[in-house]
């Protein structure tokens, strides 16, 4: 057909077709071979000029030469088969078709590699032979089918023939197994001929159990009316081999077309109306369509909308060109996918043999995609180049600028035109250019180069990470690409990190402690300078080495054991060790961490020595009779001596860690004293304080404390020493002094009272006497006033004498305060007093009731107790209420506290207590005008009671009576007040 005309155009395409194409000159020599020869036979261009027969297996050469001769002689193609030799020595079976195109000197031999098919055919033949042997009756399948075509029975021969077990088919429709392309014909035969007694169904492909399609020749017998059967009997024979042979024959006839089909993906004819009139079978492989699906349709129906306009334009502009190309367009495949098709159209309208346009299309999707990808990646690269913040520059091998990205231009503040074709040294700072040029020369050697550089441009210093890459094409350097990443900030950050690292290093170095760290294998990972000095090793020599080996210490050494302990337990280990080399005590702290351990050595020589001193001090402190407490800087007890324990009852074990104050202070410790203590403690100076403490037993304990703060060499407060003196004795003295002072005060008060008595009560009668004495000389002895005055003078002198006697009595009571007391039985003394006043009591008709148990006794003076009862009863009689009978009740009882209460009450005239107030018991105070009295009774009673350490209270109501309540210590419980 039109192929001949387009040979040159298509030659290239054919070269890539899988078909072997050999052009043989009249001398039998190869003039041209297609690419497929290279692939299949492994030999190609080098065969040109050699005999065609050399390609062929020696045994087949004669046949091949004969066939070629036939082909040259006759008009149509000649088919033959030959074994060819592949480059690797293998045999390839090639099915050839040779023909002599008209007006050509060359014989065209088209070959197809059918090695696999031949092998398959041989296998098939072998299988067939086998089947024929095993088949019982010469057929491959015997079955009974019902009217619908469903299997009722299947003979056993089907198993070797098609691979099914008979029972697999029972109940299923025979049509289910027939090839979709054949089933319609088969069903038509079934329906048309079903009523006839016997018929043949046109050959159809039947699916074998392994999925292969087998051509089956089938004859059917209608046995529906046979009561024994009532079914169709179907006998089928596998005729696949025959069908293949027929098909091959057909193909050979159609070879010419086949060449076209193999050369292009699709070959089509199109009428002047623009619809397909012929579509090559390869369209199915290429696009998935059956040829007939396209016939009558326009190609434009299948073209992608975006490509349609271009395709239509090309079509419209075809004119009378014999051959023209349509722009590549996307064509819709049967599965809906778009395939890029490259199409060449030949105008064969004038060719009477064709009278149509020929369309040769090739699927170029892959190529197209690759091209698109290339375009995309170029675009991407361009974008990167244009928009990247990284400075980028292309130079040719001589260093001239070919391109520069906007970032670089902006850095230089120049336009592209200013830099193109110039050398960077023309516009870079002059001091920077030599470096740039040197680097450029380096990269010219063909190696990529990365480095950091700092450039000062227009006063701003920036740091760049520069990469120079040589551009190589076919092994030749055509230019250099340079990128510069501004890492000024990063460099600054790095610099900062370096600084900080250095600083950290300095910190570690400035740790006053020796310090080292090891990994878990005991390899030294760090050692500061102090550590170097301590261990007498150098970090530079020992880093990464096993510490124990360096130190010559084994697993038995204390260091090793402690480090191992820290690693094993994950806990910090601390211990003290003496360094023989340094003659120093070290506190060693081992801190385990994930990568190993770090060890700090602190010099604690001083502490150890001060501990020793402390111990010596303790020896001294133990010897002293004063309590000694040593506390830490926070006041927590570290040590107490034995005297402390003796004084307070608290042992060292009980005190250790406690603040002494919190243990020793108690309820009566004055808050002011505690506050004073705290204030002075804060002053960090030595001080003394006296404070009330409590022993463990609860007894009071007065301590005079000297607190001495102890400082270390650095001036830091580290301890307090408290030396405490038990001053209970002194406190007792103070207490007795207070008592004496009180007594003196009492005496003083008594003296004041004495003065008062002198001024009023003693002077009153004396003043009267003086007045009367002055009056008398002026009076006539006969005047009655004279006698009266004289009598008054006598009375006044008597009064003065009485007062002097009272004073004597008073002072004598005071003097007797310290006389040793006796046991005084209250009941006895009371009855005595009452008996002595019986006469005046009876005279006024008074009743006295006594309710005083006989066993009650007080510690005191009998005369005082008598005086108390006598004076109280005397007062009751004297100040009785005139209009009623006097009743006096005297009662005594033991109260809860162990003391005795004496109650003395009467129903007499009483007095106004509010008015009398505190003066009730004062000397010479009188509250009654009518009755005579000196106002000394109550004074004496109170003096007597107080001399016996008792108290007296009075309640009274005018015309209601009076009650005295006296509290006295019982003889049994009475004791002198003691200093607690």
């Amino acid at each position, binding site marked *: 057909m039109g192929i001949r005309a387009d040979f040159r155009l298509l030659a290239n395409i054919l070269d890539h077709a899988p078909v072997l194409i050999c052009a043989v000159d009249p001398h039998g020599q190869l003039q041209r071979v297609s690419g497929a020869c290279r692939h299949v036979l492994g030999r190609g261009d080098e065969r040109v000029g050699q005999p065609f027969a050399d390609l062929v297996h020696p045994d087949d050469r004669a046949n091949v030469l004969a066939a070629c001769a036939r082909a040259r002689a006759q008009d149509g193609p000649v088919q033959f088969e030959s074994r060819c030799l592949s480059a690797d020595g293998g045999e390839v079976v090639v099915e050839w078709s040779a023909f002599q195109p008209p007006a050509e000197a060359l014989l065209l031999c088209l070959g197809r590699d059918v090695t696999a098919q031949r092998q398959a055919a041989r296998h098939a033949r072998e299988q067939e032979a086998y089947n024929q042997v095993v088949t019982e009756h010469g057929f491959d399948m015997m079955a009974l089918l019902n009217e619908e075509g469903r299997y009722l029975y299947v003979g056993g021969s089907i198993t070797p023939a098609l691979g099914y077990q008979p029972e697999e088919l029972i109940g299923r429709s025979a049509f289910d197994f027939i090839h979709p392309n054949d089933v319609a014909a088969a069903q038509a035969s079934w329906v048309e001929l079903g009523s006839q007694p016997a018929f043949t169904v046109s050959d159809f492909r039947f699916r074998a159990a392994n999925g292969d399609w087998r051509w089956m020749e089938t004859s059917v017998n209608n046995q529906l009316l046979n009561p024994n059967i009532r079914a169709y009997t179907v006998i089928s024979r596998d005729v696949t081999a025959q069908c293949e042979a027929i098909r091959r024959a057909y193909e050979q006839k159609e070879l010419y077309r086949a060449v076209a089909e193999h050369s292009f993906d699709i070959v089509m004819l199109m009428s002047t109306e623009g619809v397909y009139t012929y579509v090559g079978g390869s369209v199915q492989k290429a696009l998935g369509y059956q040829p007939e699906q396209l016939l009558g349709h326009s190609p434009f129906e299948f073209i992608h909308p975006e490509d349609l306009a271009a395709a239509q334009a090309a079509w419209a502009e075809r004119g009378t060109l014999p051959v023209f190309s349509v722009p590549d367009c996307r064509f819709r495949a049967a599965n809906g996918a778009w395939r890029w098709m490259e199409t060449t159209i030949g105008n064969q309208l004038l060719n009477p043999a064709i009278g149509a346009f020929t369309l040769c299309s090739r699927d170029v999707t892959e190529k197209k995609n690759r091209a698109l990808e290339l375009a995309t990646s170029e675009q991407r690269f361009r974008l990167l180049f244009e928009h990247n913040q990284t400075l980028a520059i292309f130079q040719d091998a001589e260093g001239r600028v070919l391109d520069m990205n906007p970032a670089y231009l902006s850095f230089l503040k120049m336009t592209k035109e200013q830099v193109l074709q110039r050398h960077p040294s023309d516009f870079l700072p002059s001091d920077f250019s030599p470096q740039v040029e040197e680097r450029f020369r380096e990269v010219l050697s063909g190696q990529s180069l990365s480095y950091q550089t700092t450039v000062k441009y227009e006063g701003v210093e920036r740091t760049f990470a520069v990469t120079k890459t040589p551009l190589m094409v076919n092994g030749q350097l055509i230019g250099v690409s340079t990128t510069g990443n501004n890492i000024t900030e990063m460099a600054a950050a790095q610099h900062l990190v370096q600084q900080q690292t250095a600083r950290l290093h300095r910190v570690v170095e400035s740790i006053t402690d020796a310090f080292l760290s090891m990994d878990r294998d005991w390899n030294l990972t760090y050692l500061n300078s102090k550590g170097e000095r301590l261990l007498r090793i150098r970090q530079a020599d020992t880093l990464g080495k096993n510490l124990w080996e360096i130190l010559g210490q084994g697993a038995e050494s204390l260091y090793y054991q402690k480090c191992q302990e820290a690693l094993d337990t994950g806990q910090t280990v601390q211990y003290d060790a003496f360094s023989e080399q340094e003659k120093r005590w070290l506190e060693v702290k081992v801190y385990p961490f994930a990568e190993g351990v770090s060890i700090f050595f602190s010099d604690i020589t001083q502490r150890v020595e001060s501990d020793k001193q402390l111990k010596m001090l303790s020896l001294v402190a133990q010897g002293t009779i004063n309590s000694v407490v040593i506390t830490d800087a926070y006041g927590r007890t570290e040590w107490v001596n034995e005297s402390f324990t003796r004084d307070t009852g608290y042992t060292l074990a009980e005190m250790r860690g406690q603040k002494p104050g919190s243990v020793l202070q108690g309820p009566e410790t004055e808050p002011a004293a505690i506050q004073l203590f705290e204030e002075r403690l804060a002053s960090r100076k030595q001080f003394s304080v006296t404070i009330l403490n409590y022993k463990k037993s609860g007894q009071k304990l007065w301590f005079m404390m000297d607190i001495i703060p102890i400082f270390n060499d650095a001036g830091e407060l580290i301890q307090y020493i408290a030396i405490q003196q038990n001053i209970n004795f002194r406190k007792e003295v103070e207490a007795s002094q207070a008592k004496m002072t009180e007594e003196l005060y009492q005496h003083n008060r008594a003296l004041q009272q004495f003065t008062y008595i002198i001024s*009023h009560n003693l002077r009153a009668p004396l003043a009267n006497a003086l007045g009367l004495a002055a009056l008398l000389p002026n009076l006539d002895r006969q005047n009655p006033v004279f006698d009266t005055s004289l009598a008054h003078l006598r009375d006044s002198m008597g009064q003065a004498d009485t007062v002097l006697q009272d004073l004597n009595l008073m002072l004598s009571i005071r003097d007797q305060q310290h006389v040793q007391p006796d046991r005084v039985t209250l009941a006895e003394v009371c009855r005595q007093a009452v008996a002595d006043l019986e006469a005046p009591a009876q005279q006024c008709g008074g009743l006295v009731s006594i309710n005083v148990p006989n066993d009650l006794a007080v510690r005191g003076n009998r005369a005082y107790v008598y005086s108390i009862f006598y004076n109280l009863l005397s007062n009751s009689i004297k100040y009785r209420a005139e209009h009623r009978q006097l009743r006096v009740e005297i009662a005594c009882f033991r109260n809860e506290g162990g003391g005795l209460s004496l109650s003395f009450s009467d129903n007499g005239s009483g007095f106004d207590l509010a008015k009398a107030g505190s003066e009730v018991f004062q000397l010479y105070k009188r509250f009654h005008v009518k009755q005579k009295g000196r106002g000394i009774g109550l004074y004496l009673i109170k003096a007597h009671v107080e001399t016996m350490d008792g108290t007296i209270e009075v309640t009274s109501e005018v015309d209601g009576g009076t009650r005295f309540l006296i509290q006295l210590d019982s003889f049994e419980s009475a004791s002198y007040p003691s200093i607690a």
Partner: protein
Amino acid sequence: MLTYLIDDDPVSLFLAEQVLRQAGVASPIRQFATAEAALQFLSSHLTTEVPHVILLDLNMPAMNGWEFLEALRPHAAALVGHCHIYILTSSLSLSDTARAKDFALVSDVIHKPLSEDGVQGIRHAAEQLHSSPG
């Protein structure tokens, strides 16, 4: 010169009256043995009979001289300018003299025994009071 004598000591009362009479006082003299009695009489006769002179003892049972003076404060307006009160006490205590100054009605403190010179001073003061206008 109407005179009141207030003293719990009968000897003192007797002596004071005798000394006043010896000194020539002829006008009436009233004696009170308790301060309460004197106060009651005085407050009920403020409009009819205000004494020119009161001689007051300090040391008395129940109401003493100081208490009497305190009780007299409400009537001070009626007495001032008409009545001289003299404390007549056996006490030699300076504190009593000082305390007397708290009371405007008290003209002076006289220590017992009352002498004729003392009476002349009282009489002189009373006559001045008497002779002064208003």
